[in-house]
């Protein structure tokens, strides 16, 4: 090995703690890149493969009842490759040992054989026998939640008739990778399952012999989805078509998309923070090392080493530190990605491993980090190469300090000389002080951008469940029923109050902006499920006009007073222009509200309702639930309070993980910055500190010199970090926003306070580590040696 390389290794050994602190920051960058992009790739690649293998459809549509012959007509649409018609209806389930009513999505399998689209992935058992009326396949998560095995039985109320069903298969479906029950905020596998039965059995149960109510299509390559949707709508409108939609509006697909979008937002925003800080640190450590080794560099030059070989020597040190950082980052990133993947398997049901290790991603992450480090080192390395050999041979002149305010003002009479030393030192190295401050600020920013979600989610829950949707439970009928149906529900035991609603699927358009949404019709005297304006005041809906959620209004570029074009799907193309009477608050989904009578008028029908919101008496809930399970007209039931509890539990779990990760990451930055900065300072000022000790200052006074400086820099970093964090959080909220949900941007003062406290603690720990060195200062050896 070359002597110069040996020097490198020994330098590295001497600087191990500092190098490691830098390497950790870099590792955090590599890891966040691997986690974000790695999970993104894993999720999207696995999804694509699964879709392909199971022939997941491109277009979906519901109708009320369409004869089977229509399927041939659909097949004629240009661009359509495959067509499969099915019967899909929700129904209440009655499961022994489980008091709450559950909802099942009953979906037909062809009379024999397996489906040609949306093929099931068999986990165990066999598909129901052709001709069987009681055999079913169920989704795996639902089966697991109830510990169902092949051969287990449960009850269902199919179109009013109670039936016992036997499980012959446990399956997965690409349509329900994310399986969210009606009205739920989080998947609750106990209360929601998918149930597949042979078509004749379902047709008989729902009076749909020779007909279908659901169709899915797979498009040919290059087909225009928009054109196919239009043609399909035209065909189905005679049969009560509710409007065809593509994958982007398919619930499971849309949730996966939202997750992918979050991952990509995270990997765009997080890794750069770490890369910038590690470039800072490299710069700090290297410029210190080089100023310390001026004479050695001069010597290399004196004996004939070229500037290039000296530059390369120091670049190699950077490469070594980066290699360490990248290696740690690879290990941590792989481990954490794996952890994230496990977390995903809880929510996303894939038939195979979704952990894809891509060598290319690793190569990119490594390369980007090393490049950032080299950029950070460029200035110092260039300085080293440019040092003139003659000048390098002279000891550096003592640094020039300046008096404050040119010494004209002397407001510091009462301040001790030590404090003046601190202040002078800060301003003597403004760049380093600035970088240290910025580094600490980044750490604060990272925490602010993570902790704020607690406040935002709490706020969203408060608005959604305590102020807007205050009902305990919501029934949805299989199909719209006359307004008198409200009374049937209100008479159930334990129902304290009941409030009807009507759901109609429409296309809203404004010029070329268009969106398929559901309009909710609500009574004038709504009290359970309320509509809130942007100031969160309850809105009463006038006799005509639409109130739009702010997200939807923004998408359609509408404001209050504008006219929106409403096209009612499945109603022989009823169309109308309706004024936007209000813009209201919405966090979940795309919302549009209208007075329930106005909606009936628009539809040209007598008043009818799709379902009922209820307030329940908890004391009578047992009677209520057992009565519900006998109601023939009910198809689905949402339990908002139980859903909320589930939501909070899941969110709390995830947020705790998230906070732990971010506190770790922020501490790594704070420690890396402060530890390095303090070590450098300490080395530079060892002689000065030792002299002070010799003069009779105590250990405490001397170490206070160092600690005070960091205390000041940390204080200065707080407002900068808060501002940066505010910006980061805003970027994250925007990046996370999707049609499905939107996080309100609520920045609590306590978020700032907690972020500050955590970073202060990290700073204090790192400063104390260095202080131990100050206390153990060997006075004689420091003063004996030449600078």
């Amino acid at each position, binding site marked *: 090995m070359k002597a110069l390389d040996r020097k490198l290794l020994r330098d590295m050994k001497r600087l191990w703690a500092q190098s490691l602190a830098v390497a950790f920051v870099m590792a955090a960058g590599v890891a966040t890149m691997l986690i974000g992009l790695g999970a993104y790739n894993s999720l999207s690649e696995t999804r694509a493969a699964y879709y392909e293998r199971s022939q997941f459809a491109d277009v979906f549509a519901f109708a009320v009842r369409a004869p089977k012959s229509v399927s041939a007509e659909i097949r004629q649409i240009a661009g359509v490759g495959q067509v499969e018609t099915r019967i899909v209806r929700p129904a209440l389930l009655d499961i022994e040992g489980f008091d709450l009513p559950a909802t099942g999505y009953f979906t037909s399998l062809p009379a024999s054989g397996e489906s040609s689209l949306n093929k099931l992935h068999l986990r165990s058992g066999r598909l129901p026998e052709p001709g069987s009326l009681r055999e079913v396949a169920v989704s795996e998560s639902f089966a697991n939640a109830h510990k169902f095995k092949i051969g287990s039985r449960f009850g269902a109320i199919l179109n009013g008739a109670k039936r016992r069903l036997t499980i012959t298969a446990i399956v997965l479906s690409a349509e329900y990778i994310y399986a969210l029950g009606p009205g739920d905020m989080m998947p609750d596998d106990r209360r929601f399952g998918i149930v597949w039965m042979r078509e004749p059995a379902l047709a008989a149960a729902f009076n749909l012999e020779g007909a279908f109510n659901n169709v899915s299509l797979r498009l040919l390559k290059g087909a225009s989805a928009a054109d196919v949707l239009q043609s399909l709508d035209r065909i189905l409108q005679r049969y009560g078509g509710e409007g065809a939609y593509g994958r982007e509006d398919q619930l499971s697909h849309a949730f996966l998309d939202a997750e992918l979008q979050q991952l990509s937002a995270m990997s765009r925003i997080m890794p750069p923070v770490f890369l910038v800080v590690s470039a800072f640190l490299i710069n700090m450590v290297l410029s210190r090392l080089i100023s310390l080794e001026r004479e*050695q560099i001069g*010597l290399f030059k*004196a004996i*004939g*080493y070229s500037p290039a070989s000296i530059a390369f020597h120091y670049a190699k040190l950077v490469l070594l530190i980066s290699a360490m950082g990248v290696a740690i980052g690879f290990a941590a990133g792989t481990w954490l990605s794996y952890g994230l993947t496990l977390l995903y398997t809880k929510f996303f049901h894939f038939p195979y491993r979704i952990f894809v290790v891509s060598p290319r991603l690793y190569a990119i992450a490594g390369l980007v980090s090393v490049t950032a480090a080299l950029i950070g080192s460029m200035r110092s390395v260039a300085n080293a190469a440019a040092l003139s*050999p003659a000048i390098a041979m002279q000891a550096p002149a003592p640094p020039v300090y300046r008096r404050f305010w040119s010494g004209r003002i002397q407001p510091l009479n009462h301040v001790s000389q030590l404090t003046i030393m601190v202040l002078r030192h800060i301003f003597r190295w403004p760049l380093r002080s600035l970088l240290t401050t910025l580094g600490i600020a980044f750490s604060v920013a990272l925490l602010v951008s993570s902790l704020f979600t607690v406040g935002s989610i709490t706020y969203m829950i408060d608005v959604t469940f305590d102020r807007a949707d205050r009902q305990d439970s919501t029934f949805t009928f299989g199909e719209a029923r006359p307004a008198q149906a409200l009374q049937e529900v209100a008479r159930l035991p334990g129902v304290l109050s009941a409030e009807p609603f009507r759901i109609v699927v429409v296309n809203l358009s404004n010029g070329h902006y268009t969106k398929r949404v559901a309009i909710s019709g609500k009574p004038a005297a709504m009290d359970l499920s309320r509509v809130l304006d942007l100031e969160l005041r309850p809105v009463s809906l006038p006799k005509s006009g639409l109130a739009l959620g702010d997200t939807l209004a923004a998408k359609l570029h509408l404001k209050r007073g504008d006219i929106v074009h409403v096209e009612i799907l499945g109603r022989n193309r009823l169309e109308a222009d309706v004024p936007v009477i209000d813009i209201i608050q919405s966090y979940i989904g795309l919302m549009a509200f209208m007075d329930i009578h106005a909606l009936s008028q628009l539809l040209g029908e007598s008043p009818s309702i799709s379902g009922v919101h209820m307030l329940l008496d908890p004391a009578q809930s047992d009677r209520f639930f057992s009565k519900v399970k006998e109601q023939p007209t009910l198809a689905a039931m949402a339990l908002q309070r139980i859903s909320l509890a589930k939501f909070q539990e899941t969110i709390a779990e995830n947020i705790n993980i998230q906070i732990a990760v971010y506190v770790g990451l922020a501490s790594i930055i704070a420690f890396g910055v402060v530890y390095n900065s303090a070590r450098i300072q300490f080395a530079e000022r060892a002689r000065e500190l030792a002299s002070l000790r010799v003069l009779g200052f105590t250990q405490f006074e001397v170490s206070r010199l160092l600690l005070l400086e960091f205390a000041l820099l940390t204080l200065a970093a707080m407002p900068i970090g808060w501002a940066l964090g505010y910006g980061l959080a805003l970027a994250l909220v925007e990046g996370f926003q999707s049609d499905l949900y939107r996080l309100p941007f609520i920045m609590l003062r306590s978020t700032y306070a907690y972020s500050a406290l955590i970073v202060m603690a990290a700073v204090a720990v790192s400063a104390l580590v260095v202080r131990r060195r100050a206390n153990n200062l060997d006075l004689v050896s420091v003063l004996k040696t030449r600078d």
Partner: protein
Amino acid sequence: MAEAVFTARGLTKVYRSGEVEVHALRGADIDLYSGEVSVMLGPSGSGKSTLLNILGGLDRPTAGTVRFRDHELTNASERELTRYRREHVGFVFQFYNLIPSLTARENVSLVTEIATAPMKPEEALTLVGLGHRLDHFPSQLSGGEQQRVAIARAIAKRPDVLLCDEPTGALDSKIGVLVLEALDQVNQTLGTTTAIITHNASIQGMAHRVFNFGDGRITSTHVNETRVKPSEISW
């Protein structure tokens, strides 16, 4: 008379720092001869180091000319100076400037690795009487030993000239003599042209030729008829 290795005429060096101009050299002329030991004497600040740095290619004169054999150093580029130093010059400084993280042997290897026909590091260290200290780090060596490692490092590439700036400046008499002996030994064995800066007049006895400096010029030169052995010197 021996051949002149260095020929410098009218060397001037002006340092500018802000508004202050320091004239380190004011028209110095000097010739150094092949195989000789020269001693440069003079008070501190008289320009000795500046001249030596220019001869060694560490620095350039503000005016004047300097030649090393047939190399014109006056207007050489940084790259040419680097090559010149690498091929022809060995340096020894007052503060030994050893690399603290390398052992004695490795400090010498630093040079032998980039030289064309070097001696073995062990050989160079034996020549200065340190054959038994090969694997010690600088911190484990005494000042005199460190300086001798520096000498070994300087001569290991068999340089044409050895330039020493106050090599004994940080050492007491007894230890300093060992260093001077090492230099004398190198001169006798390898015939290296050697220049030694000192402000210690008692050292001049060991030189073939002595230059006296004053105020940026060479004020007088003399040749020693008989040379004193380093072991007979003390201060």
